[in-house]
């Protein structure tokens, strides 16, 4: 029998240990989902378990197309905000006309993919976790697997594909809008013409910068999908469990997006 003081120390440590173990479990599960999804994409047709185009297209509509308004609004706002901040910061040095350079790089490399990832995590990641969680507690996932329909192939792959394609697509859209909105402000504030601004943007950006942003966005898309599936498919305990899984899914995917961003930038720039 341990003394009470020992217990008081040991219990939080044990709890922490359990959490870490659960976290590692979830990571392993996420990795295995990614592997299985690749498998079904590669050999599904041969195994008479094809990944069909219709559900992928449907998911792309709901993940991508219907997110355009909100992505546009936020991207435009952030573009203007960056222009404001840039001009304000450069003014003391009399270097306002350098703002184009900073705005162009920070939008394409950082802000567009990041803001897109966060919006999609909140919209589609949450929806996916809630949908899978509800299916889990209604035995719908069990029903699939006793019907000869592999749940990963049928439910996970379409969402994963849609997110991997649509987050970069939205991010490119956000690039354009944010740069455009920033341009409107910069040109009116600094008395520059819009074509001159665009020339400045073109001079500042290399293809590598756009690719950097798009590649990150694709990673964010995959993270959103995997986190949502891991949380949704582990739901226990009714509607409350679904709510918890949804919240967890959003918090975890945004955290992972920011962390992945840091790691990616570190690896790409250092």
């Amino acid at each position, binding site marked *: 029998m341990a003394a009470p003081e020992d217990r008081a120390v040991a219990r939080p440590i044990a709890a922490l240990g359990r959490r870490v173990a659960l976290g590692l479990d979830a990571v392993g599960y996420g990795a295995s989902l990614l592997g299985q999804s690749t498998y079904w994409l590669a050999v599904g047709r041969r195994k008479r378990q094809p990944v069909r185009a219709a559900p992928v297209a449907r998911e792309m509509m709901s993940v991508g197309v219907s997110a355009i308004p909100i992505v546009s609004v936020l991207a435009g706002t952030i573009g203007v905000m960056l222009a404001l901040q840039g001009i304000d910061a450069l003014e003391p040095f009399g270097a306002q006309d350098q703002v184009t350079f900073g705005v162009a790089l920070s939008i394409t490399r950082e802000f567009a993919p990041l803001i897109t990832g966060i919006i999609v995590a909140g919209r589609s990641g949450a929806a996916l976790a809630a949908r899978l969680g509800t299916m889990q507690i209604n*035995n719908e996932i069990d029903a699939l697997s006793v019907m000869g329909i592999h749940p990963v192939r049928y439910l996970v792959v379409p969402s994963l594909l849609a997110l991997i394609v649509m987050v970069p697509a939205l991010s490119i859209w956000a690039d354009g809008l944010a740069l455009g909105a920033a341009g409107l402000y910069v040109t009116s504030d600094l008395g520059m013409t819009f074509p001159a601004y665009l020339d400045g943007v073109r001079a500042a950006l290399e293809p590598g910068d756009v690719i950097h942003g798009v590649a990150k966005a694709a990673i964010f898309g995959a993270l959103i999908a995997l986190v949502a599936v891991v949380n949704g498919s582990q739901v226990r305990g009714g509607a409350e469990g679904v709510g918890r899984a949804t919240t967890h899914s959003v918090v975890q995917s945004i955290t992972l997006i920011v962390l992945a961003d840091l790691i990616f930038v570190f690896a790409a720039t250092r």
Partner: protein
Amino acid sequence: MATDVAGGEPEHEQKVVEVEDLVVRYGDREILHGVSMDVRRGEVMVIMGGSGSGKSTLLRHLLHLERPASGRIRLLGHEVCGMDDLEWTAFSRHLGVAFQSGALFSSMTVGENVLLPLREHTQLDESTMEIMMRLKLEVVSLAGFENLLPSELSGGMIKRAAFARAIIMDPALLFCDEPSAGLDPVVAASLDELILRLRDALGMTIVVVTHELDSAFRIADRITVLDRGHVLISASVDAVRSSDDPRVQDLLNRRFEEEVPDPEEYLSRLTGERFEAVD
């Protein structure tokens, strides 16, 4: 349909389901303590037992939804416990399952639910599939409801739609968890008749979990009685009826009502304290 996956034993005594010494634990609790039973080709096997006796647990293991601590399960001559997910997915298209809760896909209409196995597993053209779907819905008295969503159906209708989905591929082996619980007597009786018709006309082997005694005796060829994770008896209807095992008779006569608790024990359960009997 699925008979090609069965083994090569002589037809008349072919065992379609074989369970040997199945032990199931959830955490520290042992739920099934070495269950053995089998189901012969073309018969209706009813699994009975009180609430919490482990019927659904047994079914979930038969369906590869969970892995037992030990024991063997063979379906249609195939070892199930050793299968991985891929093998199970390829195999399970030969089964039909109607879950206790229905488990219809809530984002799809009734018709789409019933069509799903056809769409996924056959190359039939759309109009043929729709005819088959309407036929099966008619069989469960749901003709005309194919465009409704599950949320627009009553509980009994959901069960029947799930039944239609389970039999759409004419499976060789059909599992039903509580098919008639919660249905009105007329519909329940018609589902019972349907089960018998599927057995007689299509030679389906059917495993039904139920605790409705009347229904059980109406449809069963043989009955397995589960009691707190043990098989009390697994035998023909007549043998079960005339069993002299007092626990079997108890269960049959009491119609699986909740046990009447011992007053002392009941008091201590309510108060959470232990009372010593004083005499």
